[in-house]
């Protein structure tokens, strides 16, 4: 990736500890005035938010508020976007999704995207390792024992819950420090939602930074540090998990529940 080398050269020389400290203080992901379009329709009208290292942040909002589009725009898989998205200080807008993934961002789509022509293990091994320090296959199987039992099955023959675990497990090998999870609990039974909550907390404790899109605010409240609320393609509010109880009325109004 020549462009990231270039940006490194152009930044001022810093000593290694100073640089490390600066990087840790700066947000891992910073989104500024992000706009996005699908064909003629303008979906995002200037989204701003940021996530620090090791944080777990959710995007809340009603259907059509632009949560999924925000994830896709960060990942670079919308037709057209403008504004600024920086990851570890590097600008992502203007680069194709394969280069963005290589910088250390892993994406788990809403529709899960399990490949039917690949078996479970092939699905797990598909995303390439982009950075050292990812989980090994054995560790992933330890986290998701069901997947190991069914590793030779066709990916799409799994149950909905298992497919979701596969979709999450698949991106843990890559070593990407930032995970984008799009509605991992959608359409799943309560006991599975609970299990996914445990897994997400476990991932946070292992040091992953997570941006989670959720409709299920009760679920989100149990796992996240902070919540950004989206409406009509903008971020309209930010509520820390600790303040959720005081703001419950406001939140319910936002989400229309």
């Amino acid at each position: 990736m020549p462009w990231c080398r270039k940006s490194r050269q152009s930044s001022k020389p810093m000593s290694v500890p100073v640089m490390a400290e600066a990087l840790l203080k700066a947000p891992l992901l910073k989104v500024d005035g992000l706009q996005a379009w699908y064909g003629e329709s303008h979906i995002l009208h200037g989204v701003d938010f940021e996530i620090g290292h090791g944080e777990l942040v959710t995007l809340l909002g009603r259907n059509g508020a632009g949560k999924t589009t925000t994830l896709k725009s960060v990942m670079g898989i919308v037709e057209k976007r403008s504004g600024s998205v920086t990851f570890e200080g590097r600008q992502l807008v203007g680069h194709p999704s394969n280069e963005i993934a290589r910088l250390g961002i892993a994406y788990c789509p809403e529709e899960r995207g399990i490949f039917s022509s690949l078996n479970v293990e092939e699905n797990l091994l598909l995303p390439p390792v982009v950075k050292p320090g990812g989980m090994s296959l054995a560790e992933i199987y330890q986290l998701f024992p069901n997947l190991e039992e069914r590793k030779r099955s066709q990916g799409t023959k799994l149950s909905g819950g298992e497919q979701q675990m596969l979709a999450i497990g698949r991106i843990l090998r890559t070593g990407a420090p930032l995970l984008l999870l799009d509605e991992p609990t959608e359409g799943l039974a309560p006991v599975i939602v609970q299990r996914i909550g445990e897994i997400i907390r476990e991932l946070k404790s292992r040091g992953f930074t997570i941006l989670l899109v959720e409709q299920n605010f009760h679920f989100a409240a149990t796992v996240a540090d902070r919540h950004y609320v989206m409406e009509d393609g903008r971020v309209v509010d930010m509520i820390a998990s600790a303040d959720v109880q005081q703001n419950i009325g406001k939140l319910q109004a936002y989400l229309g529940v």
Partner: protein
Amino acid sequence: MFELLGIPPQALFGQLLLGLINGAFYAMLSLGLAVIFGMLNVINFTHGAQYMMGAFAAWLMLTILDIPFWVALVLAPIVVGLFGVVLEKVMLKRIYHLDHLYGFLLTFGLALVIEGLFQWKWGSSGAPYPSPIPGGTNLGFMFLPTYRGFVVVAALVICLVTWYGIERTRLGAYLRAATENPTLVRAFGINVPRLITLTYGLGVGLAALAGVLAAPIQQVSALMGTNLVLVVFAVVVIGGMGSIMGSIVTGFGLGLVEGLTKVFYPPASNTVIFVVMAIVLLVKPAGLFGQTK
């Protein structure tokens, strides 16, 4: 000597061997066509011309540069495959978003250009390519020319290696996944556009490899792939493009059917594959190995 339904065994087995050889070419070509279609959404009409280019490359290497067959067998597919890479980068990649028919028309036009140019430069009469393994063995029931036996075995090996590459390797997994959902595969960090270029290059190289193998059996001529590609289309319709193994089995099987027809009812041998296609369309429209959708 025994006779089968009044057919002398030499004729029967001779035609079966010819059928197997034709089947080998059907299999290799339909395999490439299917893989290219899966990734590029383009039915590669240029496939026949690229098969011809493989044969021509080997013939030119031999007559001009004195490069022997066995070297050309490796070199010619690489050269023609690189030509395919250029074609993909310059033209094909600009039309993926359009209806399938534009890819079909574009590659049809390219086939006309390529075959026309070769015909203009070298005529259409064809040139012989000496057999790299002359001689043969009398098996008692038939005479087996060594090279022809080699072609059948080599084609089978090539098909199985291709199958293994697609179904059992990491690169093959990328390919299968990108055929299903290229956007997501790209978002995992895989350079899908490059994968597509590579796929086209490999598919074209496979066609050229078939062409090199064909050179010592057929005359090397500008139009040697023109009719072949039309038969291969029928083979693809019969087999369906969903399964790699399906393409291989259908290709060899139809070659044998054609060979048998030559023995029992020669006038129909040209058309039998199209008749099979009509029957398959009636009975199983999605093709023998196609997914019904």
